[in-house]
C-alpha cells in the first residue's frame, strides 16, 4: 500500500458557507435585511432587540426575529411583546446557531413580506464566530459591565462584527467603564468598526441606532 497526498484545500465549514450564501441571496432578493446579533450572555441583547423591534414597527417596518437559546422560550416571549413575529430555536446544548437551523425556521414559518429579520444568536463570545447565518450585518454587543478589555480577550468574534453596540451605558459611571479604552480595543481587533452607545434602560441611542440600520440597509419607511 502506497500513501498518496491529495490536495483538498476546502473550507471546513464550506457546507454552511454555501447554504448561507444562498440564503443571503434569497433574503436580499425578497428585500429582506438580515442581521445576526452576537455577544456574551447577559449583555442586554434581548432587551435591546425588543426595543429595536418596537421602534422599527413604529416606523412602519415589517419585522421578525429568530432567537436562539439552549433551553426555554423565555426570550421569544419577551420579544413578542414588541408586536413582532418571533420564533425560538432551542439548541439543547449546541453553543451556536447554524445556517441550516435558520433555514429550517424560515422555510416552515410562512411569514408574509418582511423588511428586517433579526437573529439573536446564542449568548457566547466564542462559538458563533465561524457560522455565517446568511446575514447582511453582524451586530456585536458589549456591555459596560463586562469590562473594556473583552474585545482583546475574545478577538475572533469581535473581528467578525460590522458594528458594535456598547450596551447598558446608563451603568457606565457606576462601573467606571473606560469608553475610550473599549473603543480602542475594538479598533485593535476590528479596524474601522463602527461603535454606537445604547441603553436598554433609558432607550438612549435607540433612534440613532434605528437610523443607522436604516441607512445601512437602504430602507426607510416613515
Amino acid at each position, binding site marked *: *500500500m502506497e500513501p498518496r497526498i*491529495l490536495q*483538498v484545500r476546502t473550507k471546513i465549514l*464550506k457546507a454552511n458557507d454555501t447554504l448561507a450564501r444562498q440564503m443571503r441571496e434569497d433574503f436580499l432578493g425578497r428585500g429582506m435585511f438580515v442581521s445576526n446579533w452576537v455577544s456574551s450572555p447577559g449583555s442586554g441583547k434581548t432587551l435591546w432587540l425588543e426595543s429595536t423591534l418596537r421602534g422599527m414597527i413604529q416606523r412602519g417596518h415589517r419585522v421578525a426575529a429568530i432567537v436562539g437559546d439552549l433551553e426555554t422560550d423565555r426570550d421569544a416571549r419577551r420579544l413578542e411583546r414588541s408586536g413582532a413575529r418571533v420564533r425560538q430555536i432551542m439548541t439543547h446544548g449546541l453553543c*451556536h446557531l447554524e445556517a441550516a437551523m435558520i433555514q429550517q425556521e424560515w422555510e416552515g414559518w410562512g411569514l408574509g413580506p418582511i423588511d428586517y429579520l433579526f437573529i439573536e444568536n446564542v449568548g457566547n463570545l466564542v462559538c458563533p464566530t465561524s457560522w455565517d447565518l446568511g446575514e447582511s450585518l453582524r451586530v456585536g454587543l458589549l456591555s459596560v459591565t463586562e469590562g473594556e478589555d473583552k474585545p482583546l480577550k475574545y*478577538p*475572533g468574534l469581535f473581528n467578525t462584527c460590522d458594528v458594535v453596540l456598547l450596551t447598558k451605558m446608563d451603568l457606565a459611571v457606576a462601573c467606571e467603564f473606560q469608553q475610550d479604552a473599549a473603543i480602542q480595543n475594538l479598533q485593535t481587533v476590528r479596524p474601522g468598526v463602527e461603535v454606537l452607545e445604547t441603553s436598554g434602560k433609558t432607550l438612549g441611542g435607540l433612534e440613532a441606532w434605528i437610523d443607522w440600520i436604516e441607512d445601512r440597509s437602504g430602507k426607510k419607511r416613515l
Partner: protein
Amino acid sequence: MHELSIASEIFKIVQSHAPDGRVLAVGIRLGAWSCVQEDSLRNSFRWVTDQTAYEQVRLEVERIEEIWICETCQQSFDQSKDASDGPPDCPWCGQRLGLLDGLQEMRVEWIELQEEPETSRE
C-alpha cells in the same frame, strides 16, 4: 463545544474524497482567531470517527498566524511577517498590495490516502 460540529464537517469532507475509508491522515489549517481549541477538536474527531473505517485517521493541525490576500491578483498566501512592517510582496504577481486576512480561516488542506500498489508491469 462547537469543535464537535467542526470535527463532523472535517469527517464529511474526508468521506467525500475517500469513501472507501483508505485514509491515513488529514491535514487542516486553522487561523489564529478561528476560535478552535485543538485538544477539543482532536477529541471530537476521535469521537465522530469512532467505530468507522476512519477511526485510525490522524488529524494533523497547522496553526497559521496570518494570510495575506493580494489586492492585485486576489491570490492568497501565508507568510509570517509583522503586520506593522506593511504587506509583503505577493509571490504570485510580485505586487506589494497585500491585505491581512484569514485570521478566521479553517481549511482542510490535504488528505493522505492509502492506495493499492500498481500492478506489476511487463
